């Protein structure tokens, strides 16, 4: 599944387009502790969080993630959005909870991160 298709699956709005919205998602993840994500993030990952700090963008870019999914309608603040635009990081916003996002991703066959 690619980022564009994931946005449709999650009924998400695209707060920021990624460089390539047809990039395939390699795995799914959920975590709000950013140090934990720094330690466990992977390339191509679709990461769900309620955190909106600019470091969310920094970490997703650093880990070469496919996209960030902000759950429960959380929006990036101006600084974070500007950073996402600059880095061309795909940011999806959905009204669904992180729990629902994970359930939908699992059902759609998106794998957990590889150990």
């Amino acid at each position, binding site marked *: 599944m690619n980022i564009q298709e994931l946005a449709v699956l999650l009924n998400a709005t695209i707060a920021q387009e990624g460089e390539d919205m047809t990039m395939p998602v390699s795995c799914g993840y959920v975590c709000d*502790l950013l140090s934990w994500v720094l330690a466990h993030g992977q390339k191509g990952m679709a990461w769900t969080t309620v955190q909106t*700090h*600019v*470091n969310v963008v*920094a*970490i997703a870019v650093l880990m070469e993630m496919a996209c960030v999914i902000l759950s429960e309608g959380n929006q990036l603040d101006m600084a974070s959005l500007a950073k996402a635009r600059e880095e061309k990081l795909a940011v999806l916003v959905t009204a669904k909870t992180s729990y629902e996002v994970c359930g939908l991703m699992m059902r759609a066959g998106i794998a957990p991160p590889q150990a």
Partner: protein
Amino acid sequence: MTPWNIVGMAKVKGLDVIALTDHNCARNLPQAMLAGRAYGVQVLAGIEITAKEDVHLLAYFADTEAAVAFGEEVYTRLPDITNRADLFGNQIIIGDDDEPVGLAQKLLLNAIDLSADEIDAWVCAAGGVCVPAHINRGANGMIGALGLMPPLPRFPVVEVCQQLNCSPDAVKGRLILHASDAHQLADIAEQGFSLDVPAPTAKHVFDYLKQR
């Protein structure tokens, strides 16, 4: 712990200046100031605020009134969730003669509705100094919650928990404070941390932090 026995313990431990920074509440500061004058211990007025990222931030103020007023605004921003003393303990406000005069009703453990950056700007605008607390301590430290420290010039002063490892990169170029983070009387540290200030007063410590 009461303001009076905290300051009394600080006197016993030989501390020159202490800071009282209750979680999301500044209503015990006036008594701590009185106790400070009575015991001859300098007390820096402060509060520990929980940002919406779960990061703990210390805010220090030059005068008690400003700190108390700021504390009331912080309290207003807490979610309307009532404390359950059986789970989280009593949130006692102490008045004259070290006697309880009331309780903080809202659960002080909660986060307010502002981000760490917004709180930093707010504290600064109110004339205070904002210092991330125990940046190297788990989920409530800035490194844990945010993965890495915001680059300088943000947060030029940080508090580091001495008992835990801290990445040198996180504190490079910043003034490091060590505190006992005492939540019980016995945890109040003895002398062992000093700042290069002209005189051991709360005002000098505040100015020293402010000029960073």
